[in-house]
């Protein structure tokens, strides 16, 4: 079955607006995805029909809000194949999830310990570990990439040592689109008794995630890259690891008993979720997942690969254009540079034509330095993009090229 992309686009109100007098061509999906009406409705419905604080009210609305909020947790747990729904911890997004874990790890790190990350990290999965290592005296090891933007697997194995206590890596690179073989790498790290975290900010947007199959200890992602609201994210951790994980925020909701001088912590997930949570965000994210699940995952994948294949082909036919990141296993992202043109210039001139892309270092300054580019222009594709939009992108690029020549 093929996706009916026209019908999908109908469900995204924002895709019908114009930008700079042109129909919007939105190709910045790796930064954030647009929201289907179902998600917008879920947020509106929550605030118009059901708003109340969760877990503590002695009234009807609070019960209903709590039911919807906990049902959302169940939806996420099922979607990522968690063992149990208590393993799903709400956060504000991927960055918070990684920070929470890094801060916990930092308390346990000591000099001589090693943390492994990769050259393709987003700053969120680099600065976190770099700072955790600085605080504890542990050392940060960085697995290099190959020239094509794939991870150097041999180097991964050789940098993995008996001193490696933690490995954190992206499921999919935001700047290059490279898909990492996280299951295989996780198994290697677990064989050294290291804990493993996957930065799933990009991974979650391209198909169903199975955290048990990957075998990692932590998987973090953001709702807004999955057609959900901003400000809600998920940190999944295995129950065994999370149950005695250092608490990160203390206060209401997360305690069992409190006296003036002492307190005891509640059970998961509450012990890691102090304060009133982003209830509407959680419900909105569940609505996004429900919406997405009406489609066949294989159809979505095939559509995204068709978009990338066409974009890659047109890119290869464009004089002076160099694709940055050619890994065999990649998805969703065409990162490129043009001879004699700064990425910012390309971005400006595409924007004037109604085409939204991202330009710059993609929050990956060390990676850009490694690739010896000042930054790239990045078009990123998702379920609602069309092959026609890929054509428009290249008409836009060619126009920009001529203007800048």
């Amino acid at each position, binding site marked *: 079955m093929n996706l009916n992309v026209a019908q999908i686009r109908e469900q995204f109100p924002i895709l019908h607006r114009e930008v700079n007098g042109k129909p919007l061509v939105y190709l910045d999906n790796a930064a954030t995805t647009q929201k289907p009406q179902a998600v917008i409705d879920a947020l509106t419905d929550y605030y118009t029909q059901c708003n109340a604080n969760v877990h503590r009210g002695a009234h009807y609305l609070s019960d209903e809000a709590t039911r919807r909020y906990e049902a959302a947790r169940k939806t996420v747990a099922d979607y990522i194949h968690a063992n149990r729904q208590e393993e799903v911890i709400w956060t504000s997004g991927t960055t918070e999830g990684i920070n929470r874990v890094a801060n916990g790890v930092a308390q346990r790190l000591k000099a001589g310990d090693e943390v492994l990350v990769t050259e393709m990290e987003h700053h969120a999965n680099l600065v976190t570990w770099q700072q955790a290592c600085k605080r504890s005296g542990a050392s940060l090891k960085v697995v290099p990439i190959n020239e094509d933007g794939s991870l150097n697997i041999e180097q991964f194995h050789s940098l993995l040592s008996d001193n490696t206590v933690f490995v954190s890596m992206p499921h999919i690179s935001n700047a290059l689109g490279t898909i990492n073989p996280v299951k295989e790498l996780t198994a290697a790290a677990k064989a050294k008794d290291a804990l493993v975290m996957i930065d799933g900010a990009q991974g979650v947007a391209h198909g169903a995630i199975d955290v048990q199959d990957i075998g990692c200890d932590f998987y973090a992602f953001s709702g807004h890259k999955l057609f959900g609201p901003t400000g809600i994210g998920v940190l999944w951790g295995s129950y065994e690891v999370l149950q005695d994980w250092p608490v990160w925020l203390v206060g209401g909701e997360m305690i069992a008993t409190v006296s003036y001088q002492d307190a005891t912590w509640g059970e998961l997930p509450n012990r890691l979720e102090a304060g009133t949570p982003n209830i509407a965000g959680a419900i909105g994210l569940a609505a996004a997942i429900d919406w997405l699940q009406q489609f066949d995952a294989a159809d979505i994948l095939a559509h995204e690969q068709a978009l990338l294949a066409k974009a890659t082909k047109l890119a290869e036919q464009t004089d002076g254009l160099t694709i940055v990141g050619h890994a065999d296993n990649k998805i969703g992202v065409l990162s490129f540079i043009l001879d004699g043109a*700064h990425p*910012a*210039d390309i971005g400006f*001139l595409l924007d004037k034509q109604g085409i939204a892309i991202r330009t*710059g270092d993609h929050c990956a300054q060390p990676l850009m330095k490694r690739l010896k580019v000042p930054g790239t222009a990045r078009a990123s594709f998702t379920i609602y993009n069309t092959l026609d939009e890929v054509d428009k992108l290249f008409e836009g690029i060619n126009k920009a090229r001529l203007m*800048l020549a």
Partner: protein
Amino acid sequence: MNLPNTDEIIDDLEFLDNWEQRYQYIIDLGKALPGLPESQHKEEYLVRGCQSNVWLISEEKDDKLLLHVDSDAVIVQGLLTLVMAAYHDKTPEQILAFDIDNYFAQLDLENHITPTRGNGLRAIVGKVQQLAKHSQA
């Protein structure tokens, strides 16, 4: 260097009626600006924009501020030329008296020179005004 003055720029842009022509004009201005030699692309001269870099060197001569600017993006370079037209080789009093917001509004470059755009243009304007205040004091 022979920079167009602000009135010439306003007139030129007014004459161009589609965005392609207007931006081609900005690009051509950017290409004509001499910029700075690579050796002057120093951290101390860098004004950070989010997407592209801008370097600014200033000197005082005969009570006027001489400005030398460069960017790695040609459109930003062109936009810098617009700023240079307003501020280069002017006295601090002239710089501070110049209504830059009104000038930008007259150029009508839509959202290109709003503060939220990460091209460092506003940062340059702020920096030049600061230099002018400093040299006045």
